[in-house]
């Protein structure tokens, strides 16, 4: 008994203890609940923070970029200033000498500047610009004017030592200007003898320009042609040089591809599966007329000989004495890059890409073929007139034709032979759109089968008809016992059958009407597509034939067409 009582007391304790544990567990649970709420709040906060952080990162990145650009801009502005200062410091007198050279030439012409003035000024620049070829050249010129042979010889030697090419070119142009033909020819010969067609200097284009525009005696031109011919023979022997030019010309032609007037063939655009190819071919053929115009303008503009020889000579001399010297070029390039950075608001990359594109202008040396290509593509950037552009085109003619032939053949290879039409599920191909009758027949048979297919889909209401028949049959049996009910049953069964069959017929009619409507519309579209196909193929063939016209035009361009000298002295170069 006592054991029993103890056992009760013990159990109550255990119960109590369990209750406490239970209570505690509840508390823990509720705490966990609170904690999970807190966690949820924290998670939300974290999400918000992440978004804010991302926004911040974005803003920060933008800030860094803007800051970098700003710094680039500031740096570029400072650098341009410094570089210009350096240019002024190192080559400041170069520009002064350049101005003086033009001045002396004009002064001598007008006879208003005294020999003494010319002498003292030229000797002064000699001291101020050590290393610049134009300084001793001016001294030589001044001493030549006053018949001081010994000074002239010394200055000439110095000038040639400093820059043989430019001095040679300078005196070549100068002697021609004052009518010393023999001396001019000797200078020209000297100039050509040491040219390397693989590695021509920038100013060679000036000589080409001078000889082409007829500022020299015809004999000089003959001389030049002799060299040009031998260079061409050398350069066109291998694939390397000529292929490079062909590649560039091919790119040049491709760059002329015009955008398409998008509304010209609206139906083909919508229904031709191969519209992308069709459109691309249209752009291809439309290039021909533009190319014809381009080359035609080069040829026709070349007959403008209005400006006198003297003006041309002065222009060329002016170019020669005013262009940057090679020594200045590295600095001038840096100035240009920094100017571009400023123009692009501190965007170094885009400035560099513009600079790269301009690189050819700054390219100090090029091979003869590249020089011709540069002059032919963009005479302004190459520093030549339209006349030299024409000469360059005429000399480059053989590989321009090769490149044009390749361009044309590539385009022709792409011309689609068939037009793939898909109209309302009806797919067909046509070559030139002239097969309307066959196409319409094909389309009709397509719709015929479509109608059949759709009609098959309309199901016969078998169950309703069966039930109707059954009710009718029952009605018929009942007529014998109860006439009215039997008649009613028979009537209901009949109406049910009649209705369901009528509904099916109506549905079928609807299907037919709908498809007929589709067919009618599709037929119009097909006719329209075929008409557009006829026009399209007509345009392709008309425009394509213009490629042959371009070829004929290119064939007629020969070097002798572009010389200011008379035809009888001109030589056929190639």
């Amino acid at each position, binding site marked *: 008994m006592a054991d029993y009582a103890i056992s009760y007391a013990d159990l109550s304790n255990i119960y109590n203890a369990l209750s406490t544990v239970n209570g505690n567990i509840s508390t823990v649970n509720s705490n966990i609940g609170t904690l999970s709420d807190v966690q949820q709040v924290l998670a939300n906060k974290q999400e918000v923070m992440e978004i804010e952080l991302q926004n911040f990162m974005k803003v920060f990145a933008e800030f860094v970029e803007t800051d970098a650009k700003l710094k680039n801009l500031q740096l570029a502005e400072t650098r341009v200033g410094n570089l210009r200062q350096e240019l002024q410091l190192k080559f400041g007198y170069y520009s002064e000498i350049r101005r003086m050279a033009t001045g002396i030439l004009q002064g001598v012409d007008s006879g208003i500047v005294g020999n003494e003035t010319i002498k003292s000024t030229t000797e002064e620049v000699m001291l101020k610009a050590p290393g610049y070829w134009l300084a001793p050249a001016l001294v030589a010129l001044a001493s030549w004017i006053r018949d001081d042979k010994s000074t002239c010889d010394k200055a000439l030697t110095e000038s040639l030592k400093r820059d043989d090419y430019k001095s040679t070119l300078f005196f070549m142009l100068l002697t021609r200007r004052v009518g010393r033909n023999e001396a001019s020819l000797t200078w020209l010969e000297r100039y050509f003898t040491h040219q390397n067609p*693989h590695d021509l200097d920038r100013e060679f284009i000036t000589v080409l320009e001078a000889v082409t525009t007829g500022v020299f005696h015809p004999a000089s031109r003959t001389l030049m042609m002799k060299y040009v011919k031998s260079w061409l023979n050398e350069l066109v022997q291998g694939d390397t040089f000529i292929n490079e030019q062909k590649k560039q010309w091919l790119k040049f032609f491709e760059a002329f591809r015009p955008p398409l007037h998008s509304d010209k063939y609206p139906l083909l655009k919508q229904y031709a599966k191969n519209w992308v190819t069709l459109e691309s071919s249209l752009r291809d053929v439309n290039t021909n007329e533009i190319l014809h115009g381009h080359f035609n303008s080069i040829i026709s503009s070349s007959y403008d000989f209005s400006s006198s020889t003297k003006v041309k000579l002065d222009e060329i001399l002016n170019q020669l004495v005013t262009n940057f010297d*090679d020594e200045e070029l590295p600095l001038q390039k840096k100035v240009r890059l920094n100017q571009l950075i400023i123009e692009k608001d501190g965007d170094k990359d885009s400035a560099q890409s513009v600079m790269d594109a301009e690189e050819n202008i700054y390219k100090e040396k090029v091979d003869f073929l590249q020089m011709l290509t540069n002059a032919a593509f963009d005479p302004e950037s190459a520093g030549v007139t339209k006349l030299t552009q024409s000469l360059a085109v005429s000399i480059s003619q053989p590989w321009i034709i090769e490149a044009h032939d390749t361009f044309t053949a590539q385009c022709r290879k792409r011309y689609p*032979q068939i037009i793939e039409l898909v109209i309302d599920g009806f797919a067909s191909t046509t070559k030139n759109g002239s097969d309307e009758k066959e196409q319409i027949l094909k389309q009709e048979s397509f719709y015929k089968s479509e109608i059949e297919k759709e009609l098959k889909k309309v199901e016969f209401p078998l169950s309703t008809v069966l039930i109707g028949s059954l009710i009718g049959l029952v009605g018929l049996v009942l007529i014998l016992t109860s006439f009215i009910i039997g008649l009613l049953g028979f009537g209901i069964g009949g109406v049910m059958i009649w209705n369901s069959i009528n509904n099916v017929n109506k549905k079928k009619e609807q299907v037919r009407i709908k498809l007929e409507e589709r067919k009618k519309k599709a037929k119009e579209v097909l006719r329209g597509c075929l008409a557009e196909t006829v026009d399209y193929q007509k345009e392709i063939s008309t425009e394509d034939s213009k490629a042959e016209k371009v070829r004929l035009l290119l064939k007629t361009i020969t070097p002798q067409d572009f010389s200011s000298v008379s035809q009888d002295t001109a030589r056929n170069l190639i």
Partner: protein
Amino acid sequence: MKNMGKIIFKTDDAQLKLNSDQRSQLQSGFRSERDILKKRSAKYVRIFSSLDTKSLTEVQGWNKLMQQVHEEFGTAELKSLPIGIVSKCFLGESYEVHILDLSAAQIIKHFKLNEAMPSDYEKARTLALHNAYAFVEVYTDKVIVIREDGSAIKI
């Protein structure tokens, strides 16, 4: 500009001369592309653009044809000769082009409109059909289009 003087006074300047590597490159280039693009003779163009298919059924006809090919390409290696020639077919309206297989097979095969040609030749089809071109020479690695005047265009 400083090196201008150098060219005048040091005539052995490296720039004036091509080094042997460049020279050999130019030479090998000359053999490959300039040769393949040389203008085809009028006789060659005539024979291949107006082909009398009947004559080809005879062995002699093929021999003549192959002789003309060798004459045209001189001493060129066999692998640098065209594997075949694709030109317009005048057999009838349904026929479009034909292939003159110049390889060992030496057969002429005519193709109808929409009839597929072997893949090597298919790329020449559109150009062969164009009126501006007389025929197309198909090589293992390229296609050369020949105009009526004999000029060759590499594609």
